[in-house]
């Protein structure tokens, strides 16, 4: 290198006009340009990866397994009674644990962290009688107690923790009596109930020497409680009763494992349905899941099932239970089930000491914990981050539970899920509602289907239009017209999609609704009119045709299109009368069994088509124009007509370019947000039908991200939707590129 440079150095001494040695500034600029371009490219790649990384980072917690740690196993401080506490609980802050002590007839509170006794709150109402039954509502500070002398107490027990200046906690607890009512003369053996908006619904089982009787105690809105008996022939000793939060559904479980299902509003004298134990295993514990619609059933062999109410006929109001899900089995018979206070989660425990944390929607057993002894009472902390089990050895064991997103699995996100209130497993997206007991439905499948549907109908309209327009423009149009048409179509792309969406949703959709048939007719009528016109045109003697300057034939198209438009408009009502029973909407409903929505795929096709036509047209037109002229000459010289040349030589040769045009159009349609947001109706349905709308991934993100709390499952699922969208466009573009390369290899021009 250096020797060569030296020789050049010597030859450069010959003075020439053009300096042979590049100036230092030229080299510098060259280097700088190289550097800037390189840095720019790397930055773009880096940015794409950074976005991808960020999106994935936000979604990863959705799929993290649950974690748990045992905090301690200790005897409950300050319990006096010989028997187990009547119930145990933890307050809403998960700071205070409490137990109802049968001996002292008082609530005994302990610090959940230090396990130091805090307070003892006596319950004056119960002082005179012996407590024989009790139940704590898992998601309210409410409890019920039954006494030896046949009375039922409903009470609220607010526990408050306040922190002083030195951060020392001080506690305030009270027992506020709602009612204390005489149900019967016999001892109350079982009690269960719900409190909803100050309505109290209780079920109680009283036992005498002559038998057992079930009563409902209902006190609406602070009024005097009404006690009414529930009649039935039970096949054994009643082990559990469940009352729902409307005072309507009542379940009775016997020691034979038979469940009697009442609708009290309908018939108090006999059960609506009876579920008998089968296959040598019997239910030993039942409990509502939050919302009191579905329930969990624990069995003698440790298996645990989720039961849902399902309609037999679509007109049924009262629905019987059927098994929907299985969970992992526990060791020994299931003894206690406690639902979460605000999700579809639960904790179940068995006499084998198993403590399982699960989630119904996602059909998951999240954690399998082991208590040191058979579990008798169970608490699921209000924040779902702590579990307390009270065992036969009179020890309380506390675990911390960490699992912020129990409701998401690949199954709940992409597959059919049997939600509450559904008669069979379905795909559903319904992320939020006003109530805590709402079961969030996070299936992305309807959104993916909606996205594909929107893009499909958009392309169905745009692809033929854009490609034929490109073919005409590049191969047949006079170059002077072409110079006007192409930039005009490209300007269409500059129209903000929010404007297109706005017009489509608020102006076009209502307009199209009334003239659907006419619009459908236009698809056939306008081309027919245009073709007819050209047929006539070809009959016109050459002499007159020659008088029309080349390229002006486009002008006569304008009236043709207008005439076609008017014919369709006039024919629409007539055709509707004759073929569609004078009402197209009704006809669609009769024939396809589908309601025709105002925001349907005709609107989407037009609006989305408007958005993607320019890009498909431009790229296709370029591809067609770039087909080497010598192919055209070769074809024409063989006696091919221009149309034959266009379809047999030019189109195949330009096919890689046209293909990538369509794919880029598809990518654009998939990612399109504002048009689908405003013109689709945003209904997340699983249907490819052209008569209704859709909700797309992109529109869904735009609609819901403002209302999703940061870090919540909903928030992360929306990020996952973004990842799916990213992946979809990535996959489409990659596939398009691969196919394009192959086509290009096949059709490469020499």
């Amino acid at each position, binding site marked *: 290198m250096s020797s060569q440079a030296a020789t050049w150095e010597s030859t450069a001494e010959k003075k020439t006009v053009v300096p042979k040695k590049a100036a230092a500034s030229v080299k510098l600029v060259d280097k700088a340009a190289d550097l800037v371009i390189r840095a720019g490219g790397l930055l773009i790649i880096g940015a794409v990866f950074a976005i991808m990384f960020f999106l994935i980072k936000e979604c990863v917690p959705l799929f993290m397994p649950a974690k748990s740690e045992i905090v301690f196993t200790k005897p409950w401080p300050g319990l006096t009674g010989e028997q187990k506490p009547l119930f145990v609980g933890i307050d809403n802050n998960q700071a205070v644990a409490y137990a109802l002590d049968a001996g002292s007839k008082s609530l005994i509170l302990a610090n959940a962290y230090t396990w130091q006794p805090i307070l003892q709150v006596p319950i004056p109402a119960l002082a005179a009688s012996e407590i024989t039954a009790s139940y704590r509502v898992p998601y309210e500070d409410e409890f019920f107690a039954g006494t030896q002398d046949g009375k039922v107490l409903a009470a609220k027990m607010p526990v408050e923790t306040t922190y002083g200046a030195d951060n020392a906690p001080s506690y305030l607890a009270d027992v506020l009596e709602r009612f204390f009512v005489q149900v019967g003369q016999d001892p109350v053996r079982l009690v269960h109930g719900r409190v909803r908006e100050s309505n109290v619904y209780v079920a109680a089982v009283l036992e005498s020497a002559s038998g057992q009787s079930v009563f409902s105690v209902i006190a609406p809105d602070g009024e005097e409680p009404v006690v009414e008996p529930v009649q039935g022939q039970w096949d054994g000793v009643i082990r559990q009763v469940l009352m729902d939060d409307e005072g309507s559904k009542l379940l009775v479980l016997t020691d034979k494992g038979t469940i009697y299902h009442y609708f009290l509003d309908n018939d108090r004298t006999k059960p609506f349905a009876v579920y008998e134990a089968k296959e040598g295993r019997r239910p030993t514990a039942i409990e509502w899941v939050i919302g009191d619609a579905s329930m969990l059933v624990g069995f003698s062999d440790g298996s645990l099932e989720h039961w849902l109410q399902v309609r037999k006929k679509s007109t049924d109001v009262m629905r019987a239970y059927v098994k929907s899900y299985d969970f992992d089995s526990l060791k020994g018979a299931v003894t206690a089930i406690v639902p979460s206070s605000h999700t579809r989660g639960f904790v179940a425990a068995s006499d084998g000491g198993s403590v399982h944390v699960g989630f119904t929607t996602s059909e998951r057993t999240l954690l399998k914990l082991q208590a040191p002894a058979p579990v008798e009472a169970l608490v699921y902390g209000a924040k779902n981050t702590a579990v307390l089990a009270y065992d036969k050895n009179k020890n309380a064991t506390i675990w911390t539970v960490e699992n912020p997103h129990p409701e998401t699995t690949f199954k709940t996100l992409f597959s059919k899920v049997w939600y509450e209130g559904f008669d069979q497993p379905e795909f559903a997206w319904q992320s939020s509602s006003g109530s805590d007991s709402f079961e969030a439905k996070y299936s992305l499948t309807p959104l993916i289907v909606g996205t594909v549907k929107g893009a499909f109908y958009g392309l169905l309209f745009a692809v033929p239009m854009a490609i034929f327009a490109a073919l005409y423009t590049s191969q047949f149009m006079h170059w002077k017209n072409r110079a006007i048409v192409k930039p005009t179509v490209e300007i269409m792309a500059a129209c903000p999609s929010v404007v297109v969406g706005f017009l489509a949703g608020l102006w076009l959709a209502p307009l199209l609704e009334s003239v659907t048939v006419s619009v459908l007719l236009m698809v056939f009528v306008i081309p027919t009119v245009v073709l007819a016109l050209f047929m006539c045109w070809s009959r016109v003697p050459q002499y007159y045709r020659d008088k029309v300057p080349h390229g002006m034939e486009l002008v006569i198209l304008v009236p043709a299109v207008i005439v076609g438009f008017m014919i369709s408009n006039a024919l629409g009502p007539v055709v509707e009368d004759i073929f569609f029973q004078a009402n197209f909407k009704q006809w669609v409903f009769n024939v396809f069994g589908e309601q025709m929505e105002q925001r349907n795929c005709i609107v989407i096709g037009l609006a989305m088509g408007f958005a993607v036509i320019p890009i498909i047209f431009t790229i296709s037109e370029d591809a067609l124009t770039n087909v080497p002229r010598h192919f055209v*000459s*070769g074809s024409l*010289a063989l*006696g091919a007509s221009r149309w034959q040349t266009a379809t047999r030589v030019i189109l195949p040769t330009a096919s890689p370019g046209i293909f990538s045009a369509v794919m880029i159009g598809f990518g654009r349609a998939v990612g399109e947000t504002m048009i689908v947001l405003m013109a689709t109706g945003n209904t997340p349905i699983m249907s490819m039908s052209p008569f209704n709308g859709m909700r797309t991934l992109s529109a869904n993100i735009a609609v819901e991200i403002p209302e999703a709390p940061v870090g919540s499952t909903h928030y992360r699922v929306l990020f996952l939707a973004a990842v799916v969208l990213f992946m979809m466009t990535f996959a489409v573009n990659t596939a398009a590129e691969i196919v394009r390369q192959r086509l290009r290899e096949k059709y490469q021009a020499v």
Partner: protein
Amino acid sequence: MTTLETQATPMTQKSTPTEMTHAVPAQAMGGLHTETTLIEVKDCNLFYGSKQALFDISMNIPAKRVTAFIGPSGCGKSTLLRCINRMNDLIEGVRIEGSMNINGINIYDRRTDVIELRKRVGMVFQKSNPFPKSIYENICYGLRIAGVNDKKVLDEVVERSLKGAALWEEVKDRLHDSALGLSGGQQQRLCIARAVAVEPEVILMDEPCSALDPIATAKVEELIHELKKQFTIVIVTHNMQQAGRCSDYTAFFYLGKLIEFDATERIFTNPKEKQTEDYITGRFG
């Protein structure tokens, strides 16, 4: 071919070329008067917009002979060649005056079907231009667009055309491979075979060997020699040796004018015009 049957153009009425050939006028030079004329050009003027490219060209091109057009670049020889199958129609703003008859039919008559004309007058271009299809489909193209889809007929034509273009032995095992995989010389012979496949009367060749190496050129020239038994060939060439080697008649053009047209032998040994001599001996051009 349906268009031909429905539209009674003058060309179809006179489908037998032999009986329609005209005797070459007496003033024709050399051996030309003994030949039968196929293409008759009369007072042909051609304008690109306002610029005139051909001036009063009149010549009779004989049937079943190879006629070479020579001359320096821009002399109008390719333009005239492209007039013969109306390829100039594709160029915007071209105007042609005078007449050009093939078999006595004016191809610029309004009633002439251009598509039929081009089926009768095939063309091979300077740059070999096989379509991005298989070898087989390239040959079939002209038949398929004419509506011939019978596999047996196509197979036969492909074999005959490739044999006619001396390409059969080289490609018979890979008929269904892409034509773009062939070498430059093979591609050009494929284009000739493609032109031959539609059985035209005339084959126009626009500098067919200018992009080929000497061996490929020799093969194409050999082929031209074979083809003149069946076809009337008009070839534009820059290569004087080529014109001398493979043509029977040579026309020399200069600045859009036909300077001299005579038997090749005479043009090269004893040209009448000074300009011809200067060009041939390499004094300009």
